[in-house]
């Protein structure tokens, strides 16, 4: 699975988890750019991403992503 494919799937997960079909993700997107992406929904997003991609992040990894691009890289490194 390449980066673009992961980004596309992440966008669907974000739309479903944040209950907002307008969410559009880019590699540079941060939590500040997405309405509704807060500390609570971050946990929901992580769990949904883990379930979708069948992987498990460590606590350190979860806190380390500065933007969506880093999250995509994190997923690739786990696959």
């Amino acid at each position: 699975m390449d980066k673009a494919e992961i980004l596309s799937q992440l966008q669907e997960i974000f739309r479903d988890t944040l209950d907002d079909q307008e969410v559009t993700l880019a590699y540079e997107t941060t939590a500040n750019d997405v309405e509704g992406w807060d500390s609570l929904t971050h946990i929901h997003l992580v769990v949904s991403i883990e379930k979708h991609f069948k992987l498990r992040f460590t606590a350190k990894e979860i806190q380390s992503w500065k933007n969506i691009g880093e999250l995509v890289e994190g997923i690739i490194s786990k696959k």
Partner: protein
Amino acid sequence: MNNYLEEILLKLESKRPAHAKKLRLNTNYLNELYVSRANDFYSQYEKHLLRENTDLDFSIDCYLRMLDDMAIERMNFLRQGKYSSVSLMEVEKCIYNNPDMMCYHMHGLALAQFLWFDQYERYSFFADSLAGYAKSAESYLEIGCGHGLYCYTAIKLLPENVKFEVVDISDYSIGICKGIINDPKVNFITKNVLEYASNSTFGFITIGEVLEHLEDPLVLLKKLKDLLSDDGISYISAPVNAPMIDHIYLFNEVQEIRDLINQAGLEIIEEKVVISEHVSQQYADKFKVPVMFAAFIKQKQQ
């Protein structure tokens, strides 16, 4: 009176801006009474902190540490569908008898009382109706006092002649509650409530967020029934899907709490259910967002 609420929010903004922003948004629908109640309690709380040679900055650090614990517990809960602690013995050893953990956890909870709208909604439900429900009570018992906000409020709202007794399993909790209330009329007892006995029944009993700390909450509800006078009233609250470091018993839905109350021979007079985030019930169900249940209950009529 100082605007402690604003002071705390400003301090939080400097340390965790996104969280502070969310707290402001979540509570912006509340009225002046909320601000006044918050400042009254925080003022009382700060007096305790100063007597202990510390201050609100310390308390805010405790609160943030508690939030970090909660995030970990929530993540594990959503992954595994269960709370991480399984036995009272384990929680007693790791938390209730661990002064460091109890310290930041209790101070964190004390601050959260007026920072989280769902906590305030429950408190408001209690404070608005207590005087009416306890009008004929001569004695008040609180099981699991935490930081003491509910007992502090009851002392203010109930007549002078009411006798107050507080039971809590943790010495630390009793200490902070005693410190904040700072009133000699309260009899404090450090004891597991299941081992607690009284020669007389009580006209009003508060059990706020205790059931989820037990392996079998029905045992406590039956104990409550025994401790409550025939015409007594109890205020009880418990959370659904609310992982915390010291929560053991998982309520998956509100109806399970109602059923247990009924099973214990008690009856709900009035209840309040609050989702802990401003989300729809459907969203709360899907992501197991904590839901808070509170009720005034009485002995079931035969």
